[in-house]
């Protein structure tokens, strides 16, 4: 097993069948688990925590490269590195015929304005799918979605320490007690077997330090995020009509004090939805009967556990 530390002290891990070392799923009857360790100290402000994360990542992986998606999450991550006095390497993915220029264009301008360089990796998604390469990657790492398969292939070729910036995803999820019919709607912290668990498997096979946790790199940064006033309002239902955190993202990141320009966010993949669907419908021929699972922990319960230094566990069937 590789000794790559995805998160601080590996406090955030994904595994199967009650065995914290089992990173691979063998059949559809395997149970799936996520473990989130508690805080070991009192957190600083959210901004201080993410600046600390930038330092910590650079200390552990001096050559680390940030994969810039063109969105706000990676922009704030970059600004955290700069606030820490660090100038990280940057890279981004460009699709043929400028299919995602509307997305990475503003980011490239911003980076240029900052006096930084961003390496561009050209990637042909059509070719990736038509050649069947995406299914090879899917099988190799148990990756279900096209976007993830693309990132894994890029990370494979990149073969150096890198981080794809994530987010602290919060959503209001309905759940039913099937014995009583009682229905509830609660705020959950979410991670995905496909998007998050897959990087543990990638590290396992390749030994390449590919990370995907910036905002959740340490339990303290996650707690600092959950303690932000806007997030607190959100998960306590004090903002009317919200079912997810993304529409409050600008307000939330404004708490960091970093300057940024609000702008619509795309992924570039919206031009390739036909391929996305093609992979989705055919993936079962390659991954058998496995269906991807999502991990979720009640956000308020998670916050209490983080504060109390207790671990939180999520079990999925």
């Amino acid at each position, binding site marked *: 097993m590789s000794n790559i530390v995805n998160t601080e002290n590996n406090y955030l891990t994904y595994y199967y069948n009650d065995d914290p070392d089992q990173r691979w799923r063998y*059949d559809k*009857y395997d*149970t799936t688990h996520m473990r989130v360790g508690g805080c070991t100290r009192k957190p600083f402000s959210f901004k201080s925590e993410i600046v600390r994360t930038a330092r910590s990542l650079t200390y552990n992986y001096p050559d680390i490269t940030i994969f810039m998606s063109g969105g706000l999450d990676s922009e704030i991550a970059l600004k955290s590195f700069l606030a820490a006095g660090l100038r990280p390497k940057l890279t981004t993915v460009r699709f043929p015929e400028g299919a995602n220029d509307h997305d990475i264009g503003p980011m490239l301008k911003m980076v240029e304005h900052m006096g930084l360089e961003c390496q561009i990796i050209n990637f042909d998604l059509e070719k990736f799918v038509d050649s069947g390469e995406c299914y090879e990657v899917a099988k190799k790492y148990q990756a279900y979605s096209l976007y993830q398969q693309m990132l894994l292939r890029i990370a494979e070729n990149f073969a150096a320490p890198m981080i794809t910036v994530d987010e602290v995803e919060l959503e209001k999820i309905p*759940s*039913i*007690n*099937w*014995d*009583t*019919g009682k229905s509830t709607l609660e705020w959950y912290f979410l991670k995905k077997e496909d998007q998050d668990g897959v990087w543990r498997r990638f590290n396992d096979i390749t030994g390449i330090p590919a990370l995907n946790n910036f905002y959740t790199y340490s339990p303290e940064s996650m707690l600092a995020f959950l303690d932000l006033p806007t997030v607190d309002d959100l998960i306590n239902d004090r903002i009317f009509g919200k079912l997810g955190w993304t529409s409050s993202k600008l307000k939330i990141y404004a708490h960091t004090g970093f300057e940024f320009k609000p702008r619509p966010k795309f992924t570039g993949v919206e031009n390739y939805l036909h391929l996305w669907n093609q992979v989705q419908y055919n993936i079962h021929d390659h991954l058998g*009967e496995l269906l991807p699972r999502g991990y*979720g922990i009640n956000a308020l319960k998670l916050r209490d556990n983080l504060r109390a230094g207790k671990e939180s*566990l*999520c*079990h*999925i*069937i």
Partner: protein
Amino acid sequence: MSYNLRPLDEHDLELMVTTAMAIYEGSNPDKYPDFKITHDVERETRFRKFFKLFVMPSRFNNHNVRKAFALFKGDECLALVGVRRWGHMPSWSISWLLSPSIGPRFIPMFRVMVAELCKFHEEAGMNEFYVTYPSDRESAYSRIMTPIRERYYTFVECTIAKNERHSYGFIHELMGGVLHPHDMSLRRYILRRENTEPLNAGGKVIRNKRETTNDNNSVA
């Protein structure tokens, strides 16, 4: 002695595996085809893995989306049954049933078990359920479910041809996600309630009178 349908939990896993092993040991392989639900070599491991999904501890998200029950008569375990609950419509389905009882002993036991399962799920607001069975067993199946039809409407939703996958994912899932070597019927049951029954049957439904049409004017 009365029957008692008991919901099972993770502590009953051994009971389930032992009962299943005992039933399969003495069974006719033609009537009870081998249990090929996972790729494990040992039959016991296969049972354990499969049954575990029906008795998940409550710490699991969605832990009771599948549930197992045991029907007891006094101390004797007469049958084990697994059900799956569905969220898009409040409904449930019988996933599997294991019983050492055959022939005349099976019929009363099965009727009590289905009635108890219906009662359990009606209390949770699930007023519909699905059952699948080989199409050539239609008459036997109709007879055994006669008492249930007094309280439930029923009809065959569709028939799935042998060795074919139904094009609708939900129906394929109800079939256990596998192909069957014979035609299968999917039967749906809907609870009769006040708002489904006409006045003369004790309900509140007033049907619209059928309008008479002049066939000569109809378009062919």
